[in-house]
């Protein structure tokens, strides 16, 4: 725990330029949470796994080439809402490249900001906000992932859920198709496919 804290602080210091921005974010998060949680909590085992999973999604999902500005453009993993991974996600993706695209982590400030991501982890406790971001990203080449139990129903693409103490996946294929994202059959085999009430 201690070491993680130190490392996180070091990474913050490295980003000295954006210090103001970060402090503002922390204040915002603090205000939004209203729970008085520490700004940089050590991620639980569950979120460590989820961080790895987020990175692994990039290996099993094909984005349309148009979603990249150039061949060397980064593949951006965004986090909208509070960051539950601490620095763990950044550590996981550091130095990794997917099809020549370096993988980076971006902490999104707004829904508009999230549009530039390739993969967005939605961590918004407010269902309205979740609905809003999903609506905003509809048809955009952004793979949305969330813990929220209603995420698939809302039109999110991949939902983490826990069953038998294991993290499972639920995929909304209609949503991914609409966003022109191709999920590997291997990934789909592992996942539970969400069927919307409409199609039923």
């Amino acid at each position, binding site marked *: 725990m201690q070491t993680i804290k130190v490392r996180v602080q070091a990474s913050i210091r490295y980003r000295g330029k954006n210090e103001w921005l970060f402090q503002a974010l922390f204040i915002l998060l603090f205000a939004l949470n209203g729970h008085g949680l520490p700004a940089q909590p050590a991620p639980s085992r569950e979120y460590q796994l989820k961080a790895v*999973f987020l990175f692994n999604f990039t*290996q*099993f999902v094909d984005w349309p080439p148009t979603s990249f500005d150039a061949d060397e453009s980064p593949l951006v993993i965004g986090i909208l809402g509070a960051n539950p991974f601490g620095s763990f996600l950044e550590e996981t993706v550091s130095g*990794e490249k997917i*099809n020549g695209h370096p993988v980076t982590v971006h902490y999104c400030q707004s829904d508009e900001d999230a549009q530039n991501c390739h993969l967005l982890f939605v961590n918004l406790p407010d269902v309205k906000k979740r609905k809003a971001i999903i609506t905003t990203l509809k048809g955009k080449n952004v793979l949305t992932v969330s813990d929220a139990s209603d995420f698939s129903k809302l039109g999110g693409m991949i939902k983490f859920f826990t069953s038998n103490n294991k*993290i499972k996946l639920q995929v909304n294929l209609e949503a991914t198709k609409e966003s022109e994202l191709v999920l*590997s059959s*291997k*990934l789909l085999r*592992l996942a539970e496919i969400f069927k919307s009430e409409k199609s039923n």
Partner: protein
Amino acid sequence: MMLYKNIPIRKKLLRIVFLINGIVLFVTCVTFFIYEFYIFRKTTSEKLSTIGKIIAANSTAALAFQNADDAKEILAALKAEPHIVAASLYDKDGKIFSKYATTARESVFPVSPGVAGFSFTNSYLDGFTPVTQDNRQLGTLYLKSDMGDMYERLRLYGTIVVLVLVISFFLAYVLVRFLQKSISTPILALAQTAKVISDQKVYSVRAVKMGNDELGTLTEAFNHMLDQIEEQNRNLVEFNQNLEQKVMERTEQLESVNKELEGFSYSVSHDLRAPLRAVIGFTSMLEEDYTSKLDDEAMRITSVIKKNTIKMGHLIDDLLAFSRMGRQDGTKTAIDMTEMLNEVITSLSPVEGNGAISWDIQPLPRANGNANMIRQVWVNLVSNAIKYSRKRKAPHIEIGSFDKDNKHVFFVRDNGVGFDQLYQDKLFKVFQRLHSAEEFEGTGVGLALVEKIISKQGGDVWAEAEKDKGACFYFSLPI
């Protein structure tokens, strides 16, 4: 086991073909067996490697999203390949993530993943395949295959080899039985011909030529040789006939010359007797009419002259008898030998003047022959016996006969002086004597005459004797 060089050529050919066939097939089969073994190992290795790659490719998501159920399901798909006995997946950290084993016995896995690649250990093929997604290693797959597949295949291969061997040996046997005839038949025919010739001495037989190969040449040469032998045989027979003809001619010449000689000696002996008679006559006249006028010495000389002249007369008589034999025709009659012998003994006994002889005369069979000549034989043999046993205190003469080899054998045995067996060959030759004239008078013609007569009658003469212990003379006549 029969020696190879002693077995028939047909079997030899069969064995040669079998041996070559066997060796060729064996070498071929062993080569293919080895080839197959290595190819199969390679194929098995490649196959396992391919399966490994497929399984690894399928397990990426399971490893990436820690889905043990999926991993298990993927590994369970290996059931389709029963020779893969064990498999396991290792995660990024080298910990076993999922396991698969056909039996509990096989459920032993390496603790941590090793270097990628497959190798044969004992009767297993096993190794590791990295599980990668986009060149990123997510874990490692371990696969273990038993070689049952290979042994099954090699067993099948072995069965095929045995079948091929059996079939090819059978075919070889049938073909050789059929084809070897082209070689063995001419040889056997040749051998058969040679055997007939050597067994039956028939040189007119010829071997049949069956082709223009070396055997054909051999047959030709063999037949040519027979031609030559036959030719030489003909020459030999012709030569023999010529020789016989020549011998006959010579014999005829000799016989006529011999006859001339006999005629000559007869006339000589006969002509010699006439002057001798005059000498005896006039000597007798001297003795009788001039006794008073001649002194004692003259009378003695006269008596010596007379004595020698008489002796010469005997000699001439004997010579005459001997030469007459050749001139006489052999008119044969049945002779009562007992009667003839009695006559001879009666005529001889008073002359010899020896009544002291004890006679033992057995009954004799009748015999065929010229009576005059046989009488002469008895006279000569009996008088000889009397002469040479006269000086004994108790002279004994035994006369008898027996049958032998389809001939009557007659014998005259005395207990006289006998003779040395060493000189037997001289016994029956003219003028050959074993005793001096002073000891026993005689001309040396008697036994020669006996021999000549008996051989003319178709019989044999021989004698047995021991010095000072008597002699026995035998003669045989055909029954």
